[in-house]
């Protein structure tokens, strides 16, 4: 079997970089220790090797389809739901009272990484089920919890999130699915939901859809949206199941993630669909954000994982493929010499280093964000707020950077295979197609960028940004202790200052009331800020590696640590340097995209 993940890198990030095992000192996590989480991750790797990676290609070749009113998915999904339920992988972060194991999110994200590297078409089914169960556990009544949560965590029933409607994709304020109150406290639900991932298949006897809908008479916009748990089959008085009028109308045929079904659901076509309110009336979108924020980290990690698997596939190819000869001093080539492995060509090495820089940088950021999630729930009151704000600020980046740059990274990986990269015999083309969805669902890159610049950067009057800057400054100080890292610490300091300047520049537009201008180039701002954040992660990794080498307190080989430092240097030279261009664009007085009366620019 080909290598698709680096467990060494994952453990380096978890234990050496983030020291996540310190969480076990907190009361909430006291029943766990490093050995327990290592056993869990090793078990998942074993499972991924045997039951996930081998069906990765097959799931692409036998996509989910709609036949006779049913969605047919690969049988591996049935086994996976069952195994994940039995092994406790669906809701391991839940509290003991809710049927979980109180596993920190940082380790759950790590576990997902292993599975997603092996096969990114499978984990959405369990991820959505866990997320939906979590919403019910957090906001649902005790009756709702009893009705649904344990069956979901055991993998018997599946869960989904139903937001999108034909006229309401990015703009959820336009949702029109309706909910009318019934005398027994339930609501009659009516409407179409499209693009619903994992929405139906034969391997779950029931689906609990978490549906955003509008109660009759509710205010317009997002303020009038409520959240409902709507089962495909409702529970009868004698604990049986009867059809709840949730019709599966079709399956979208897609360019990638073909094994992960995407359904069109019709609620209440025969006026016989009932659901229960989850949380308070009109608080639906706010509550749904709990699931959406978690899902954004999950999407970011899926993207990082697909790009990781692609990196190892192209690395192996680069080591095995011989082509051309190295250029000798004086620019000559010895045509009689044997061809060299393509990995020896600087341009190929550059593409491999780019992949390593993007994927390992993304993994570090995603684990960091997950650790903030844990600390935002389980630390001192003051720290809880700090970590919550840091998580809020980093979530759009943690979703977007791996999705966008992961695609670029895979494209480079595919390039390394030359013509074979374009052929279905190798897996690069599948990785390339699979990752494309990551920058679309769970909020497009455009929407994430608006969230970052329009909401997060100015959150708490800019205090949130200051918290991040403080973290970055602390990492700069730690790196500056080493002479060979100091120049990079200085570069990050100036990149961080440049970012601040750009924010101050853009804020002038917002303060003068020109909000459209303020956010017009939010996506470019996202690129610029992501580079600062990933450079911060790389500087931290290099400092950790350097410390290990200097103190001799090593867990990995010295080559491992040296390659971390080398890749940090690569990221600063080839990626962070691009921020000068981003700064120029963002500070340019010319506005070329807000041109209502000049349609002719696209003539």
């Amino acid at each position, binding site marked *: 079997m080909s*290598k698709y993940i680096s*467990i*060494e890198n994952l453990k380096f990030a978890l234990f050496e970089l983030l020291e996540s095992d310190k969480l076990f000192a907190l009361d909430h996590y006291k*029943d*766990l*220790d490093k*050995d*327990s989480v*290592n*056993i*869990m991750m*090793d*078990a998942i790797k*074993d*499972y991924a090797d*045997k039951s996930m990676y081998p069906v990765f290609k097959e799931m692409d070749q036998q996509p989910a389809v709609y036949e006779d009113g049913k969605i047919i998915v690969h049988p591996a999904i049935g086994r996976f739901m069952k*195994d994940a339920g*039995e*092994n*406790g*992988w669906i809701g*391991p972060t839940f509290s003991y009272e809710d049927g979980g*194991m109180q*596993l920190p999110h940082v380790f759950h994200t790590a576990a997902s990484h292993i599975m997603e590297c092996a096969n990114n078409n499978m984990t959405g089914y369990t991820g959505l089920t866990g997320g939906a169960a979590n919403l019910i556990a957090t906001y649902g009544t005790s009756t709702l919890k009893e009705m649904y949560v344990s069956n979901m965590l055991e993998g018997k029933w599946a869960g989904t999130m139903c937001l999108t409607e034909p006229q309401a994709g990015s703009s959820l304020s336009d949702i029109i699915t309706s909910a009318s109150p019934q005398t027994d406290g339930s609501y009659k639900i009516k409407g179409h939901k499209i693009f619903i991932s994992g929405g139906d298949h034969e391997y779950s006897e029931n689906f609990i859809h978490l549906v955003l809908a509008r109660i009759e008479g509710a205010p317009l916009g997002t303020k009038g949206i409520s959240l409902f748990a709507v089962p495909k089959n409702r529970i009868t008085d004698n604990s049986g199941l009867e059809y709840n009028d949730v019709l599966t109308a079709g399956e979208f045929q897609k360019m990638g993630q073909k094994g992960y079904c995407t359904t069109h659901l019709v609620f209440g076509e025969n006026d016989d669909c009932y659901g229960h309110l989850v949380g308070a009336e009109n608080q639906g979108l706010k509550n749904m954000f709990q699931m959406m924020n978690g899902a954004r980290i999950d999407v970011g990690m899926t993207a990082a994982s697909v790009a990781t698997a692609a990196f190892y596939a192209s690395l192996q190819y680069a080591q095995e493929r011989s082509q051309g000869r190295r250029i000798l001093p004086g620019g000559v080539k010895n045509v009689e010499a044997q061809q060299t492995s393509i990995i020896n060509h600087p341009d190929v090495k550059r593409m491999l280093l780019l992949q390593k820089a993007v994927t390992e940088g993304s993994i570090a950021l995603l684990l960091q964000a997950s650790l903030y999630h844990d600390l935002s729930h389980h630390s001192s009151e003051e720290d809880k707020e700090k970590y919550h704000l840091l998580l809020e600020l980093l979530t759009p980046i943690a979703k977007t950077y791996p999705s966008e740059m992961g695609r670029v990274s895979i494209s480079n990986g595919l390039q390394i295979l030359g013509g074979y990269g374009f052929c279905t015999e190798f897996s690069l083309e599948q990785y390339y197609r699979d990752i494309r969805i990551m920058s679309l669902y769970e909020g497009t890159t455009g929407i994430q960028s608006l969230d970052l610049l329009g909401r997060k950067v100015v959150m708490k009057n800019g205090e949130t940004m200051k918290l991040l800057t403080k973290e970055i400054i602390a990492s700069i100080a730690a790196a500056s202790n080493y002479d060979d890292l100091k120049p990079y610490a200085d570069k990050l300091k100036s990149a961080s200052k440049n970012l601040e300047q750009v924010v101050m520049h853009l804020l002038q537009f917002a303060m003068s009331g020109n909000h459209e201008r303020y956010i017009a180039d939010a996506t470019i701002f996202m690129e610029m800020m992501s580079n600062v954040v990933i450079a911060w992660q790389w500087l931290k990794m290099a400092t950790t590696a350097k410390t290990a080498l200097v103190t001799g307190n*090593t*867990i*990995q*080989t*010295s080559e*491992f640590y040296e390659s971390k430092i080398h890749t940090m240097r690569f990221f600063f030279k080839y990626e962070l340097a691009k921020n000068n261009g981003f700064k120029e664009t963002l500070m340019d007085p010319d506005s070329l995209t807000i041109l209502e009366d000049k349609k002719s620019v696209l003539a």
Partner: protein
Amino acid sequence: MKYLVCISRTPETTAKIAFTDGNTQFDKNGVQYILNPYDEWYALVRALELKEAGGGTVTVINVGTAENDAVIRKALAIGADDAVRIDTDPKSAMNVAKQISEYVKSNPHDIILCGKETIDYNSGEVGGMIAEFLDIPFVSYGEHLDIEGSSATVKRDIEGGSQTVKVNLPAVISAAKGMAEQRIPNMRGIMMAKRKPLNIVPAVPFEDAATVIGYTLPEGKSAVKMIDPENMDELVRLLQEEAKVL
């Protein structure tokens, strides 16, 4: 029925193998360790299956230092009831067998199971030596194991077929592929393992009779050999003599 399963810690199969100190010591730097697959997948799981069917207890035993506690924990997570670690750093299979047999003398068990070999040093000697020290029967390479009353039936792989033997208990049996199916430790098992007893017992004095003089690594894989399609005899010869797959 009391089952005792001997378990070892071995380098992970993809670990880069290197030696130090003039090729006399294994270089542990950067190596990840696992529970020896023959011990875990076959010996331990079969013991658990038999216990689940017929009752009893499953104890795992390891001879080693505290470094081994992580793999012992894994065996507990898979389902063993308790564990024993004999606290020494053994340099030979004979020492391992001596320590385990001394433990069994004062803590009798009905069946002692071990993997057919460890995937690092591959000596496959421990089981036979334990049996010798205890003066009880030993059956090697078991692919199938059943218990009835005070005897065990073991089907073992032999050249060109299989052999079934019946043996009186107590006995030592070494497990080969096929005896059971790997079990993945679930979250509940992992959490419970932390609370299961791990008894650390001192080692008895032992002096090794043999010392390792040195290790050598196999030569690197040679490049692809192209064979003329007309010359099938040469292909067969190479597959037989060099690749040793025929």
